[in-house]
């Protein structure tokens, strides 16, 4: 009797101890991860408001003695050549990424729906063929795609990049969206069709609104992929006025003497659209990735 009572009273305290230990390990790990990801960003931001001299000082100024927005003013000023280039690169990136995003949603939505709902000959084969592309590193396709683009006369156009980004982004977009449609009970569409909708109306009025989170996630994914891509933009485009931001920033600042505050300011501004997009829409993104994990 006494032993039972003893173990019973001791067990809870021991269990709580163990949970606390793990919890602290978890917290320390999270703090470490936070520093690991946030510190470079913070350092980028601090450097961008330094003067050129202060940025190269050693030991570094942890906080600039004379913070200045001069680099930002220079980059955003359409009157000077640096600003002209930066704004053009920014516009080019925005254009390529936006068109890629729109096209990828337009293609991925019906494709994913078809893969999810219809059975047609070669469905599984096609689905895995679509994914096969993602099993190879992107660089493998660099030379073949370049030859292809030259053959169809798309080298030095934004069209070449949009097409390339679509071939990279679409497979995952379709995969992601298909998972989404799989989780929408087919009975909802059937109910809508019995209630008087055509198959297309049922899709537009019932299924589309329910898959908005998936569509948004797909859009973010396509946009970020296109926005950050470097190697293809570097290979396919050679004219200065066509460059996208990643290539533009890199090329521009290696041509001039390295202007670290300017480089950091440009990098910071390049990351702003992505971060803003993600912050605004992240709840959809998380929902899209976890959808179907639990039954509701």
């Amino acid at each position, binding site marked *: 009797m006494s032993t039972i009572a003893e173990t019973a009273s001791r067990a809870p305290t021991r269990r709580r101890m163990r949970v606390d230990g793990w919890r602290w390990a978890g917290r320390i790990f999270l703090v470490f991860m936070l520093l690991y990801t946030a510190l470079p960003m913070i350092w980028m931001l601090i450097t961008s408001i330094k003067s050129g001299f202060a940025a190269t000082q050693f030991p570094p100024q942890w906080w600039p003695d004379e913070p200045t927005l001069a680099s930002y003013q220079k980059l955003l000023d359409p009157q000077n050549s640096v600003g002209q280039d930066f704004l053009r690169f920014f516009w080019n990136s925005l254009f390529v990424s936006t068109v890629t995003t729109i096209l990828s949603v337009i293609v991925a939505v019906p494709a994913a729906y078809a893969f999810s709902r219809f059975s047609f000959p070669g469905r599984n084969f096609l689905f895995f063929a679509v994914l096969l592309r993602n099993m190879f590193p992107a660089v493998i396709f660099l030379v073949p795609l370049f030859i292809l683009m030259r053959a169809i006369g798309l080298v030095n156009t934004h069209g070449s990049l949009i097409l390339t980004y679509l071939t990279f982004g679409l497979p995952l977009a379709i995969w992601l969206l298909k998972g989404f449609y799989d989780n929408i009970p087919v009975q909802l569409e*059937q109910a809508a069709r019995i209630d008087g*909708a055509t198959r297309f109306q049922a899709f537009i009025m019932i299924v589309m609104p329910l898959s908005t989170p998936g569509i948004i996630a797909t859009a973010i994914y396509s946009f970020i992929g296109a926005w950050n891509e470097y190697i293809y933009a570097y290979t396919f485009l050679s004219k200065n006025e066509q460059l996208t931001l990643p290539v533009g920033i890199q090329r521009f600042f290696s041509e001039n003497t390295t202007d670290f505050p300017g480089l950091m300011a440009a990098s910071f501004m390049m990351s702003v659209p992505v971060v803003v997009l993600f912050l605004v829409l992240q709840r959809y993104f998380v929902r899209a990735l976890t959808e179907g994990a639990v039954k509701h």
Partner: protein
Amino acid sequence: MAHVVLQDLVKSYGGFKAVNHVSLTVNDGEFVALVGPSGCGKTTTLNLVAGLTPITSGDIIIGERVVNDLDPKDRDIAMVFQNYALYPQKSVYKNLAFPLQMRKLPRDEIDKKVKEAARVLDMTHLLERKPRELSGGQQQRVALGRALVRDPAVFLMDEPLSNLDAKLRVQMRSEIKRFHQDLKATIIYVTHDQLEAVTMADKMAVMNGGYLQQYDSPAQVFAHPVNMFVASFIGSPAMSLIPLEASTANGNTVLTGAEGWRLELSPRNAQKVVRATTMKVVLGARHSTIKLHKSAVPGSIPAKAYTVEPTGDVTFVQAFLSGAIVNVSVPPNIAVSPDEQIWLEFDQERMHLFDGETEMALKAN
């Protein structure tokens, strides 16, 4: 309201026939239950009537129209789904209004009909809620409401009660039955639960393996099952089916059990056995038609009680006879213990006899 006719309906997937030459007529205002085990083709049949699945061959007639090639929206039907299929992003009001909007009714008329349906189903206070904020029973009601706002020719219901807990199921069962009586609605109701079919339907269509086994009133199906499948599927606990050997000696027809006991048949039952294609005959008896005796009486068969299940108002005793389980009900005041020697007496008037080869019920003439 309208009648529904299925003529020689077939649905095949490759070589597999999910629905195999099914023909039946649902009269105007009739409540018909399609019942059978899972995979028997009952839901497929319902989807064929709804137009959600294209038919392979045959005809479906709703009212006076052949609807084989019509879209679901043009068939003038309403359907209640097992998972209710309420539009999750729409409020209850908008769920109910959707079928009316799709039919381009004027807004004030939609409002009137939605409110009327809500009043009938006692959910006026729920109109602004989203489906996920409702309990299972309330969701069920909304699904029913969405079907009835439109006043369709036929109601199709696909296991509408199977997601509810037992108590609510019994309550909704009587509500749907009441709803049928008030509206004189033509209803085709799919269920795997034979009790639902028996309690609610005017007629039941028992299906198995894509074939329609029997189509008749629940009382008829219960009293005269056409084959062993129907006999064992309808009724709870299931009818006991005991494989026996028939023989005739001195003008008497006798069934012999594997244990060697003999059961002399009445003249009428003997007449049935003569029609069997083999000497293998299966005796079917419901628990209430078997008498349990604690000592031997003429015509009774010795057996040993195997399990005893008291349920309150009746106690079920199981015994093995000829390799089959026999279920007998006794009043709770009769105490039987496992392994006790008992004697079973079959009611010759209410026993069923089946051909051991074809599994079909044997008839006297």
